[in-house]
């Protein structure tokens, strides 16, 4: 008994000192309610860190802005960050910790699809609520998840037909050998076939491989018109430099490069010449909203090497969460999903207007086709506005009616009722 009193006193003293540090106006508001806790599970070290540190910073930026403006329903937003070290088992460990011990209201988690599939069953098991703020291979139909990243029908249905029209119908896919690469390659195959093209070849590269001489030769042997590069992680990014030095000189198409790993900034020109990427945001986008976001980001994190697609996804996700909680007047997942079911959860994000699709809980996006020039400057030959994440809904996933908590692919669609 006396122990718990002591602990209570200590907690009171601690919060007291914390509250004293804040300006007087917000003090009264914040003291009234306990904070809304947001778990942040992102890779701040390891093979994926280059692409994901910006996500953590974007969440910090959004949280700071929201807290300065009075929080969410008067409650401050408190971040509970863990470094998942590009390691799937860390995701599982920390997901249990944020849900069970820290008791967060919502979790923003994950870069690689392998890590998402590692933690997703834990979110389902403990009835948590998670945002996956990353482009990926699509198909997750799970009421516990909201996906703010772009999916294949947004990135490939735009990119592949454009490339086939411009360069030719022989396509070679070089993809990372795990669920993301395999399923994305399946999408490429499907779209190439639908558009009357042919796969000149496919190769899957184990994660962590950095030497590509033989793969380069296989590509030259197959003589494709362009190469779809779905390489993931910093080790595999060595491909571009090695392909350029072997003078492969083929146009490249990708859903992951530039927009995530800013390879055009890291490698010496012209190794990424003629790389085409469909992305919903990169810092070069020249619109007032994008410029404003970029300026805010750089003001808070001046040494940030690049503001990428996933940073924007993470930033807008915090604001979407705020909007949904305020409209639901609750942080409970079921209340929030009732708001999503209305079908009008939208916001003006740095990329343009985005909305959540109630059937799949994925996002509509403005898709920019970014082209890397010989000097590694970016131009945008084409922009597709308001591309919806239609595939899951059309295939039969409807989270407003049923929650199968599963991932589907074109060859493994939702079961027909």
């Amino acid at each position, binding site marked *: 008994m006396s122990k718990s009193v002591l602990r209570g006193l200590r907690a009171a003293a601690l919060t007291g000192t914390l509250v004293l540090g804040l300006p007087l106006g917000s003090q009264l508001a914040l003291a009234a309610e306990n904070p809304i806790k947001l778990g942040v599970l992102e890779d701040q070290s390891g093979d994926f860190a280059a692409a994901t540190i910006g996500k953590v910073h974007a969440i910090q930026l959004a949280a700071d802005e929201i807290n300065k403006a009075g929080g969410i329903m008067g409650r401050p937003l408190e971040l509970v960050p863990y470094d998942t070290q590009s390691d799937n088992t860390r995701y599982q460990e920390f997901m249990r910790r944020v849900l069970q011990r820290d008791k967060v209201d919502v979790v923003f988690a994950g870069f690689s699809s392998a890590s998402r599939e590692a933690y997703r069953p834990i979110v389902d098991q403990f009835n948590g609520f998670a945002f996956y703020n990353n482009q990926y291979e699509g198909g997750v139909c799970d009421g516990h998840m909201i996906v703010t990243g772009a999916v294949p029908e947004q990135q490939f249905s735009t990119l592949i037909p454009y490339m086939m029209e411009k360069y030719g119908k022989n396509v070679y896919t070089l993809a990372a*050998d795990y669920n993301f690469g395999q399923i994305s390659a399946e999408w490429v195959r499907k779209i190439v076939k639908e558009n009357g093209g042919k796969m000149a070849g496919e190769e899957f590269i184990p994660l962590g491989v950095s030497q590509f001489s033989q793969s380069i030769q296989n590509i030259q042997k197959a003589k494709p018109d362009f190469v779809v590069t779905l390489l993931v992680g910093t080790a595999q990014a060595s491909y571009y*430099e*090695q392909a350029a030095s*072997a003078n492969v*000189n083929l146009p490249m198409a990708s859903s992951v490069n530039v927009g995530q790993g800013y390879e055009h900034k890291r490698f010496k020109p012209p190794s990424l010449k003629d790389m085409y990427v469909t992305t919903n945001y990169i810092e070069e986008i020249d619109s007032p909203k994008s410029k404003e976001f970029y300026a805010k980001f750089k003001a808070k994190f001046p040494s940030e090497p690049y503001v990428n697609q996933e940073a924007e996804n993470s930033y807008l996700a915090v604001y979407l969460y705020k909007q949904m909680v305020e409209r639901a007047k609750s942080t409970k997942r079921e209340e929030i999903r009732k708001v999503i079911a209305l079908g009008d959860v939208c916001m003006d994000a740095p990329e343009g207007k985005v909305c959540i699709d109630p059937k799949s809980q994925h996002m509509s996006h403005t898709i920019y086709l970014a082209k890397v020039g010989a000097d590694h400057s970016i131009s945008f030959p084409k922009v597709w506005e308001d591309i919806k994440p239609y595939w899951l809904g059309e295939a039969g996933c409807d989270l407003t009616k049923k929650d199968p908590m599963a991932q589907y692919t074109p060859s493994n669609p939702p079961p027909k009722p």
Partner: protein
Amino acid sequence: MDIATHVFSALYQFGDAFAFLVLSACGLAVIFGMMGVINLAHGEFIMCGAYVTAATVHAGLPLPLGILAGTLVSALVGVVVELAVIRHLYDRPLDTIVATWGLSLIATQGTLIMVGSTMAGVGTPFGSFQVGDYSYSIYRIVLFCAALGVLAALYALFNWTRFGVLARATIQVPHMAAALGVDTRLIYSLTFACGAGLAGLAGGLYAPTMTLVPTMGATFIMEAFVTVVIGGADVFLGTAPAGGVLAVVKSAMTSWQGQLFGQIGLLVAVIIVVRVLPKGISGFVLRERT
């Protein structure tokens, strides 16, 4: 013509795999193969060499001098590590595993915190050439020549110089060497520095062709260890044939079925060699000779 193209392409792929295996393994062969110190920070010495090379090239030095700087800085770091940590653990081989693993974690995370998550690359020099339908990077040929050069230099160093004789004597029977007036502590330091410097050289040579990140050492370490394990204790007689055998397996399997099978082939070859020749290739060669 067509056959010549295929032969050249097979040779090129072999040379490329050979260079990667030998260059990543040489430093480890000296430290692990000769000294018996299991250096799990080997990849981080490689990373150190690559980072110093890239930094000096960004500062305006030509690439060869940058690589030299990377080699020397890694060797110096090697001296410091030997004096501070390894020296005290020569008779506790299992503890060196933990100590060097700890060092590798500190180095990776320290680099991430101080230098950031990536470093800009330096670009591969020399361009490409064409044989038949295929174009090849000239720099890859340079890497192959560098691997041969390193092997020749190591052979000369350990067989023909006074340092080499003293180093081998010290490592074989340390107290006898000490009794004959050899400063064994100095020899240990220099040998460790030599191994660290070779790792730095590998990093410097591969820096223009790779992504520069704090974790880049990890992509070398598997190849380095398997080459040294099947090579055995002798740097020249072990590493060179081990690199040769593994390069043939790896390049053949990769060209046949892709990268995944290349890696599988590499590991299966290692299991078979270790099973048949427990003392590695050099152990087998030396037994035949005596």
